[in-house]
């Protein structure tokens, strides 16, 4: 049972560079919190501040209500899985897992250590490898040993620093599920650092998005996806990423490079006072009009576009439409691209269509989308103009209810398992 509270945490280096700048987070008991952002956003530094490997320049860190700023890592009772696993090369898998137990001051008797190691190894399916040295293990096995070392002790929280980034795609998917399963089962508070938005979305109860040391938004995956607070979060969450199109407002009409779109009812108030906006449309909002139900077409608009390249993936089809961006917003979009670790490639619209679509390279295709689900951003500040706080709050509350429910279930299951 543990809560971790970050209050205005700052990490400044001697040259004045703030790697972490005034981050406040309230991580609830049993919660799976993700810290996500592009490289250099300060997420790893923040995690290392929590575990005690980096000094805290200012701000307070509380674990279970106790201020731990000045405590050594070993006194914080947190377990961490390092990016490169940090397995002790001279110790066997067994001894690696037993290592933290042997260090604990209330010494465990040997049979107890053995039992705990074997239980952790069983949980991670490492039983056959206990006598091997880390050098003789595959990447996935090493990863599991690192996790074993973390969960063998009764730590207050698990911290993960990009634990899957050294694995290949398939294994990454498997381990991701495994981590989720173990965390749900143990119900241990977890902080997980990643740069991969898929990991963030699938694992997290809540996700904290960081950019250049500053917390942008901390919310449930669903809220991040549907109600992002700004351009950065909107662009970071979702794959393929959201399309950002410059739009000029003229009365109730928004002129986009792909065509004119009527401003939806809800967006009109947000658009007032702006000549120029950035419209964000997720690729999956588009549909191929030729395979779309007539009945659905009513609510949306139709645009005719020249398709440059298509990629058929079996379950869906990506189509790319290059366009020239408005010079007035170009700088803002370029900056956003850099923040998102982009390569400054051509500006193009990405649409994700139904796999039934017969659109091919070079076609002129008629696409449909619903402007009501379009996001509008202030081109200067990047703030989302169409964000609905009410909806966001509802999503948040729903998410917390669901989380509590599943945590409850997991704990009841664990209680049942113990007497049996």
């Amino acid at each position: 049972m543990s809560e971790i509270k970050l209050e205005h945490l700052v990490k400044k280096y001697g040259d004045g560079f703030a790697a972490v700048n005034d981050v406040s987070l309230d991580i609830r008991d049993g919660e799976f919190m993700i810290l996500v952002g592009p490289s250099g956003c300060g997420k790893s530094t923040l995690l290392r501040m929590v575990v005690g490997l980096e000094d805290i320049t200012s701000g307070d860190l509380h674990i279970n209500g106790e201020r731990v700023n000045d405590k050594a890592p070993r006194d914080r009772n947190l377990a961490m899985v390092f990016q490169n696993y940090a397995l002790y090369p001279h110790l066997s898998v067994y001894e690696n897992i037993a290592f933290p137990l042997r260090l604990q001051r209330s010494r465990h008797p040997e049979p107890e250590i053995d039992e705990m190691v074997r239980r952790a190894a069983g949980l991670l399916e490492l039983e056959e490898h206990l006598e091997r040295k880390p050098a003789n293990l595959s990447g996935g096995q090493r990863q599991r040993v690192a996790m074993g070392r973390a969960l063998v002790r009764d730590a207050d929280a698990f911290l993960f620093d990009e634990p899957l980034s050294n694995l290949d795609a398939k294994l990454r998917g498997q381990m991701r599920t495994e981590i989720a399963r173990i965390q749900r089962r143990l119900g241990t508070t977890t902080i997980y650092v990643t740069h991969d938005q898929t990991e963030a979305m699938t694992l997290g109860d809540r996700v904290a998005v960081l950019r250049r040391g500053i917390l942008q938004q901390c919310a449930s995956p669903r809220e991040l996806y549907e109600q992002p607070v700004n351009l950065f979060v909107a662009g970071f969450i979702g794959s393929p990423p959201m399309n950002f199109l410059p739009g000029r407002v003229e009365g109730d009409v928004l002129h986009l490079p792909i065509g004119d779109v009527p401003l939806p009812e809800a967006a009109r108030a947000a658009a007032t006072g702006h000549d120029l906006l950035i419209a964000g449309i997720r690729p999956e909002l588009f549909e191929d009009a030729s395979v779309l139900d007539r009945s659905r077409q009513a609510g949306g608009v139709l645009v005719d576009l020249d398709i440059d390249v298509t990629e058929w993936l079996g379950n869906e089809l990506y189509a790319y439409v290059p366009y020239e961006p408005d010079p007035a917003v170009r700088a803002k979009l370029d900056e956003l691209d850099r923040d998102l670790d982009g390569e400054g490639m051509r500006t193009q619209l990405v649409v994700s269509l139904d796999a039934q679509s017969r659109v091919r390279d070079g076609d002129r295709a008629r696409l449909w989308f619903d402007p009501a689900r379009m996001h509008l951003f202030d081109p200067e500040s990047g703030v989302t103009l169409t964000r609905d706080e009410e909806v966001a709050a509802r999503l948040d509350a729903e998410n917390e209810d669901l989380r509590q429910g599943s945590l409850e279930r997991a704990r009841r299951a664990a209680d049942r398992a113990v007497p049996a």
Partner: protein
Amino acid sequence: MDRQLSTRAKVGWALGGLAILVYALFPVAWIVSLSLKAPSDLSNQQFLPTRFSLENYREIFTGNASELFLSALRNSVGICLIATFISVVLAMFAAYAIARLEFPGKRLILSTALAVAIFPVISIVTPLFNLWRQIGLYDTWPGLIIPYLSLTLPISIWTLSAFFREIPWEMEQAAQVDGATNWQAFRKVIVPLAAPGVFTTAIISFFIAWNDFVYGISLTSTERARPVPAALAFFTGSSQFELPTGAISAAAVIVTIPVVVLILLFQRRIVAGLTNGAVKG
């Protein structure tokens, strides 16, 4: 076709390997064979003895040459071990600092070690010869241990720095998160990782000190401190008409034994120690 070629190539490389074995072991086999020849057999002008005898070994262990040889052996072992120990301890601190800490002068220390390593020994021995006589270090153990440091310290610093650079130091942090104190992290994680490097460095250092001849012959005059290589040059036959060849060969074999034993036990590590600093830097 391809398979045939590769078998032929395999045989070729195997023959090459055999040639290396002969190359490396032939002179050693010769000196061993020589040491086993009876005195009358020494000049038989053949590779192998016609009559085996342990006479030469008796000569250096219990006979006339024993006084010279046994004291030299004692000196060599003592002086080399002490010099190796001192240089490895000093180098351990230096290499830790070089591999682990950020401070100006790192390169200076490594360059100095390099310069000292290529320094002509004779240029050191001349002034030391004079100085040692004045301050009474001539023909003493410390009188050899100190100059031996000029041989062993630079190589120890380079080899150990190379080893220490490869230690995953973030392990220390992992151990701290796992609940270790600084001291526990050092003792349980770093020491086991560093020990093989330190050990290998000690072996290489020892080889170099063991091999010294210039200091040994220049800075000693009696059995008090003269090491084996120098003593070999002073062997004489048991009588005026008898050659010291047999005794020298036997003594040469004896001082080669520890070297061979160390190589047999640790060849892998020694090769790593000799080369990993040189290529990776």
